[in-house]
């Protein structure tokens, strides 16, 4: 039960982290540089913030001019999408079909987590039925174990494989 709860909490928290980016502000030009791809003739395939070519440098200057003229980040992004198509966006939008890009990895992990939980339950049950009640715990030997156990401990440590 606890594992199920942990998995659900982790999933919810991860999705919150993914979808919460809009909750925090940032430098406007940097936001644009992060959001849009470089469209140079070399087809470098880099997001503008990572690109140092002349086209990227010119685009940065254009961003500043657009922002100075009163356009918002969303308007500038839309202008670029209208001009170049969706491929100019550095990440899929978080709506429609593109939402699957964002949700699928977490859905896969959650599904895998529940699968592992189910397997573990089966394996624990199998162990209990095959061996009866197991001891409550496997205590680690104390570092200050009595000396009569010292030799045995050393042998065990020497033979420990991992």
């Amino acid at each position, binding site marked *: 039960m606890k*594992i199920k709860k942990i998995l659900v909490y982790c999933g919810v928290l*991860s999705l919150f*982290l*993914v979808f*919460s*980016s809009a*909750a*925090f*502000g*940032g430098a406007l030009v940097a936001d644009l540089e992060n*959001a849009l*791809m470089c469209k140079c003739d*070399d*087809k*470098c*395939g*880099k*997001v503008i913030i*990572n*690109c*140092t070519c002349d086209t990227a440098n010119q685009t940065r200057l254009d961003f500043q001019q657009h922002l100075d003229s009163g356009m918002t980040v969303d308007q500038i992004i839309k202008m670029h999408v209208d001009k170049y*198509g969706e*491929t*100019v*966006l*550095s*990440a*899929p939008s978080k709506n429609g*079909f*593109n939402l699957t*890009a*964002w949700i699928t*990895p*977490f859905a*896969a*992990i959650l599904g*895998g*987590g529940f699968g*592992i939980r189910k*397997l*573990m339950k089966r*394996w*624990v049950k*199998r*162990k209990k039925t095959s061996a009866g009640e*197991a*001891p*409550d*715990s*496997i*205590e*680690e*030997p104390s570092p*200050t*174990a009595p000396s009569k156990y010292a030799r045995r401990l*050393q042998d065990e*440590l020497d*033979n420990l*494989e*991992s």
Partner: protein
Amino acid sequence: MNALGEFALQLGLATSIYGIVCYLMAARGNRIDLYLSADKTPLVVWACVMMASIALWKAFLTDDFSVEYVWAYSNSQQNVFYKLASFWGGQKGSLLFWTLILTTYMVIVHSQYRKKHLRLVPHAMAVMLVMTVFFLGLLNFSTNPFELIPLPPEDGRGLNPLLQNYWMVIHPPTLYLGYVGFTVPFAFAIAALITKNLDDGWIRLTRKWALISWFFLCMGNLFGAQWAYVELGWGGYWAWDPVENAAFMPLIVATAYLHSIQIQEKKDMMKVWNMSLILLTFVMTIFGTFITRSGLIQSVHTFDEATLGFIFLGFLGVIIAFSVFLIVKRLPLLKSENELDSFLSRESSFLFNNLVLLGIGFATFWGTIFPIISEAFRGVKITVGPPFYNQVNVPIGMVLLALVGIGPVIAWRKATWSNLKNSFFKPIVTAGLAGVGLSFFLPFTNKAEILAYITFIICVFVLTTIVLEFSKGARARAQISGGTFIEGFGSLVWHNKRRYGGYVVHVGIVCIFAGIAASSAYSVDAQKVLKIGESLELGGYTFTYEKLRVREASDVKTRIIASMGVFKDGKRVWTAKPEKEFYKEQNQPVSEVSLRSTFIEDLYVILADFREDETATFKVYVNPMVWWMWFGQMVIALGTIVCMWPDKQEERRRLQRVRRQEAVFAAGPAAPAPAQQE
């Protein structure tokens, strides 16, 4: 020499095919004569590929521009260093280089194991030869590196200026050593499936190969990050480019494999899972080459003449189909009596470690192929770039980091809440105190800063668990032997190299996470047009533009070098010398970054532009803790060496197992087959 190289490739291909046939027929029909004949083929194939490689290197060193590949990737002015590295600068040479590494590994495996593991080795050799046939087939029929130009030009085009960096000599070979290395465990896994030797013998046999390959792949990824950092000039080290992803995915899957095989070795569980993981790792290595050579996905790493997509896709399909078929066929033999003592155990933490690692791997794979999926379903090609991977992989990565601390502390078989309390009390308290302390110094103005803060707390938690593990063990050892703590520490690591080497690797991982968190969240940058004598302020430093000079480095290269005095509290701490390099017949100049790296922060200066009146545009970054990543890389290297160090205890145990097996065979009622030595 070129004709000799071409002939060597043909001979290598023919010998490889002969080797496969002989090995398989020898194994099926117990034909010693065929086995002895096949036994020489790995060496002959390697000699052929080596001969072809020497021929190509000679063509580069002697500026033989009649060879089209040499003309395309070298010129007479090029440094000898880069002439040698141009070998793997393009598609044809890189395929030959791949084949050279593959056949070298094959010869090593052959000489190591051929007399010890008579049942597995012929099949494993046959698998490696099949891989060799594929690459030699490409080299002979599709991408011949010795293709000639009828009228040889006087000079070559030269290597791409971005590749003319010392990392070109280090990064691709390291990555290739990792990629190709996974062919060895893959080949033995397939051999184990074919021969039905499905105990953990193949895992033990190839454990070090998997570790060595993982090591090279890890180092290759991090060397690539360093190269991008010093060469590309955008202040970062990882751009989630599809080809970076392609190198990252097998590393992640292989990490999962290296962890989960411990469960099989300890408890004989998860045979199907481990088999699947090694097959997936190998498939991912081929997927990486498919991406660079298909031109299907846009990437800065894609080769100019990326036309081999469908051939690689077909090869990938055959590998997957054959591997899945074998696993399904052997499923009854692979089934193990999986049992678990408790939910709270080292075994379960390894399972979740595998889940999270594969989650990161899947998220990366999904992002890499999503543009193709989108185009297939909507007819719209979209881009999946760094913002996607950062938002998806960062939270999963943080969970993974926490597991690095949690997993090793939980007892095997069964842990109780009191065990957990004892193990985690100190790390949690230390991490909590660190969190309180850090909250006074760190800003919390955006999501990246909050995530970095949480990452630091988890890093402290993980480091504390590791330090406690070392100190508890060392004290116990010291008490037993009556020596000092240092002696106990040495004895502890020496007698448990694999376990404590693994912990050292974890320390390296923590350093890398801390470096990534700090440099992503607290990096600051500024760009300004300056005249000589003017300054810009950033991160407590004053950067003053002092002079600009021009140097003709060679007939094809001109360097424009700016000098910038860097001052802190009025005291000069460094002189930055960023450059722009202009290469003849290249459209874009190349920026050479000037970098001062300390464990606190990096000062990173780029000469973005300049004019004739010596006005220049500078871009300056202050990136905190990037050094920690490269330090973490060295720590990982140290930990891996400790793990791989030959262990006499382990060798003794191996011999004991062999003797036990021999005794069983000797006492058995039926006449024994050749003893399968572990």
